[in-house]
């Protein structure tokens, strides 16, 4: 079972500092929520973790290795970042087929994940004709192809209808219950509060709170109240 360890990540772009020393862990069997306002550095942290962006300094490890050194990436980490991650001219099934092929997974697995995310009937449609929610489901299907130890999701409930939100919450809880690691980012606190075990609150590129949901909520009435207290200094 793999732990995600983010250690003192710093990311500068030109004169702008996007991350100024982010550290936290996401553990197996738990859903960890990276919480913060837009621009806090949530996506950048996830992009560095996945090797898409390069950190100025610091490390992001899956177990004991950086993501780019993983032998079997799709079976280790499934990731969904912006949108569907698919080209609009391809069908959903064709997109999943090339991803499956990159990991030597059988074609039958493509149909399995289409079934899991509820896209079987739309699989032959071009991605350009998908709604935002369908695109998100396709992205998740690709992430689930290798039945990975770890799921990394950037704003997973964005674009989903209430049904979809409930569905993804159940799915993520099930993954954690089976001992896997789930790391997700969100700026929607109420959605996050109902899904996560651990919370890492980031603001302006730094971690302002890190602990279990109860610990971070503390004496505040809700996670949202705690969040505003932590990020704006409001009582």
């Amino acid at each position, binding site marked *: 079972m793999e732990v995600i360890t983010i250690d003192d990540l710093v990311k500068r772009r030109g004169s702008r500092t996007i991350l100024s020393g982010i550290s936290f862990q996401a553990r197996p069997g738990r859903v960890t929520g990276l919480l913060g306002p837009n621009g806090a550095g949530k996506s950048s942290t996830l992009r560095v973790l996945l090797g898409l962006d390069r950190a100025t300094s610091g490390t992001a490890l899956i177990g004991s290795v950086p993501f780019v050194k993983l032998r079997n990436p799709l079976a280790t980490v499934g990731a969904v*970042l912006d949108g569907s991650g698919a*080209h609009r001219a391809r069908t959903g099934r*064709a997109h999943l087929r090339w991803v499956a092929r*990159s990991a030597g997974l059988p074609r039958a697995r493509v149909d399995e994940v289409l079934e899991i995310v509820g896209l079987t009937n739309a699989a032959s449609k071009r991605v350009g004709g998908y709604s*935002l929610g369908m695109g998100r489901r396709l992205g998740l299907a690709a992430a689930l192809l290798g039945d990975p130890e770890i799921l990394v999701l950037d704003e997973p409930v964005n674009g989903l209808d209430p049904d979809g939100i409930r569905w993804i919450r159940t799915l993520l809880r099930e993954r954690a219950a089976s001992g896997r690691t789930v790391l997700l980012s969100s700026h929607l606190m109420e959605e996050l509060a109902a899904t996560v075990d651990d919370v890492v609150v980031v603001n302006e590129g730094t971690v302002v709170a890190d602990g279990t949901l109860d610990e971070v909520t503390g004496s505040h009435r809700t996670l949202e109240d705690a969040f505003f207290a932590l990020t704006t200094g409001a009582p």
Partner: protein
Amino acid sequence: MRALAAEVSKLASLPAAWIAAAAGVLVPGVVAAITASSTRGAIARGAATVAGADTGYQELAFGVVGAIILGVVAISSEHFTESAESGGGRQITTSLTAVPSRLRFLLAKVAAVAITGAVLAIIASGTTMGVIHVVLGEHTPAMGADDVPRLAGVVCYWVCTALLASGITVLTRHGVVPLAVLIANTSVVSVTYLLTKITPLANYLPDMAGVRMFIRKLPGSTAEMSPLTGGLVMTAWVAVLLVVAAISFTRRDA
């Protein structure tokens, strides 16, 4: 090999790659039909006695637009950004989470483009020469041992051109500019050809050198170059560009 299989699968399911294939086969085929029928008319009138030595090969030099489109869309499709309403995603994030090593990803991409470009060149050569045979009949220039290296030169030229297009697109990340510049240079007025009028050094530009692999008579040529030298010069350009593209691609944020 899995990364290569994924890249071939991507190209096969990308409509723009099929447009590239159609352009690569139809452009030289149609141009060949037109020029061959005008040659046949000239022979019938007695204005010419035989078809030129570059019959078919000139057309294949134009047909390289197919290879250009292929090379560009293979890369630009990775960076194409969805609309904000669709989440603003790009395929490159999926590609690099499936194949995290940038170098391995790029090698697989380049190999897929090269293989597809070669197959396309072979099909286009067969079609173009076939069209000429049908139109010219007995006046078709006889195919000899000399044509084997020339046709190999066509394949090499198409593959190199596709790789140049890919390499430039890795640097620009966007397909429009490389597509416009490279196609315009092939079809309308060849800027590189005009440059050879100014300086003989322009003969060493990749396309001007590369066509020497199979074109025998360059009108108003300002330099002599053997087919082998031409091929080596073009290959050197491709190698340098791909190295620069790889360095840039492995260092930049995706």
